């Protein structure tokens, strides 16, 4: 299984720091400076206030498995070899949800509520796709 052939992300002005940080094995999320709450995906303003008062923080990389699915249908040419593949909905310790893959895990090993942590095994081109696996 390789992440080299994965679909490339849509990089915009708001999420560019997230993708740059992932190359350095860092998981960045935004934190609202008024409420202290974190949010993801990257946005121009805090959804808690509607104001552009936020800062990037490095997330702990920890979270729990909220739910997961197993894809049998092929939607992406570059992922055909990975079928069937797992996508997990992870609730980060800081609050927001991320949809990601359960790295090197078999569907039978995925348990809702299990503790997960991030890893950075690679991605398409020079990009890195954060992945989650059992907490290390």
């Amino acid at each position: 299984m390789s992440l080299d052939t994965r679909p490339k992300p849509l990089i915009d002005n708001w999420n560019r720091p997230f993708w740059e940080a992932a190359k350095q094995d860092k998981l960045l999320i935004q934190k609202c400076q008024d409420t202290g709450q974190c949010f993801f995906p990257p946005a121009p303003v805090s959804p808690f206030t509607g104001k552009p008062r936020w800062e990037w923080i490095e997330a702990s990389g920890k979270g729990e498995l909220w739910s997961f699915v197993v894809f049998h249908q092929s939607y992406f040419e570059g992922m055909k070899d990975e079928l069937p593949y797992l996508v997990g909905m992870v609730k980060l310790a800081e609050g927001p949800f991320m949809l990601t893959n359960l790295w090197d895990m078999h569907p039978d090993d995925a348990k809702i509520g299990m503790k997960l942590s991030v890893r950075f095994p690679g991605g398409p081109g020079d990009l890195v796709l954060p992945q989650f696996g059992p907490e290390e």
Partner: protein
Amino acid sequence: MRDKVAFAGIGTTRYGSFPESDSYGLGCEALNMALDDCGLKPSDIDGLIVSRIPSYERFAETMGINPQFCLLTETAGRFSGVSLALASQALYSGAAKYVALVYGNNGRSVRVRYGGGDSQWSPWGMTSPGAIHAMMWRRHMHEFGTTHADLGPVATAFRHHACLNPDAVMHGRPISLLDHDRSRPICEPLQLLDYCLINDGAVAWILTTAERAKDLKRPPVLLSGYARQDNFTYRSSPPDDYWYGNLSATRSVYDRAGIGREDIQGLGIYDNFSPTVMFSLEGLGFCKQGESGDFVRDGTLQLGTGRWPTNTSGGHLSDSYMQGWGIIAECVRQLRDDCGARQIPNVQAMQYICATNIAQSAILRRAA
């Protein structure tokens, strides 16, 4: 707005694959059927809402309609109910007298794919509406102890109805609970028979005021109540509450219609995937949250056996994927006693429910 607006005309095309036409051709066909149904001409139409047909201008030009109220909606199915509300508001406020609402879909013949393409989550392979519902149902199974098998009675009830409906795509193709259980996985925990169809077709409704509708050909069906509540929090990922909060808010539809749940004989529930039926039943309070599996198990949604016959045409799962437009048309037909072998006896009122980030419910009833 209780009982102020009425469905005066309904048109639905054949459903299937029609590469010789397109969404304009199908839309014109449906609108002509709706016009004939109520006895109006294109020149009588002064309000037009077009959905899933690329251009409102081209459609209006094609049909020779020059309205004073016109718009094109987004293609998502939740916009069938949204369009219903907008048309009603236009009629109630006097912005238009006769509004035609036309939905045309040629997704089958042009091989529309629901999934793939670039998105926020595509690098992780997360894509397609089905996967969002699969994610929610997996969580529901965990939180409440429901199972994939709990979805079976939804799929089999709607297929039973399609077998009573000669116009349904899946007419003549009955399925069992075992067929549901053994259908191929698409995005687990959902399998093929949890997914809606993809087919071509079109639906048109003509709405007018209840007063004007009295002078038209068919008995009017009244829009008694409509309620909507949106929830866009965490819209980038599957909702973490099955839309329970915003669906619950739409229970105000009963107060708006002035009738209670016990006064309703049948349901039309937006069924892009079988779990949305469960979320709808729980959200509107037909059963407690988490208990939809028990609620549907003994044929509750099936004509002849259940208290709540639902999607009597077969719904999106087994009749036609007309994104709510066809389901609402079926509610109207029930209330006109037009449904033949699938008619709900002595039906007085029908309720429509759509579980999405724009949660909606509407109650339709016969004019007195």
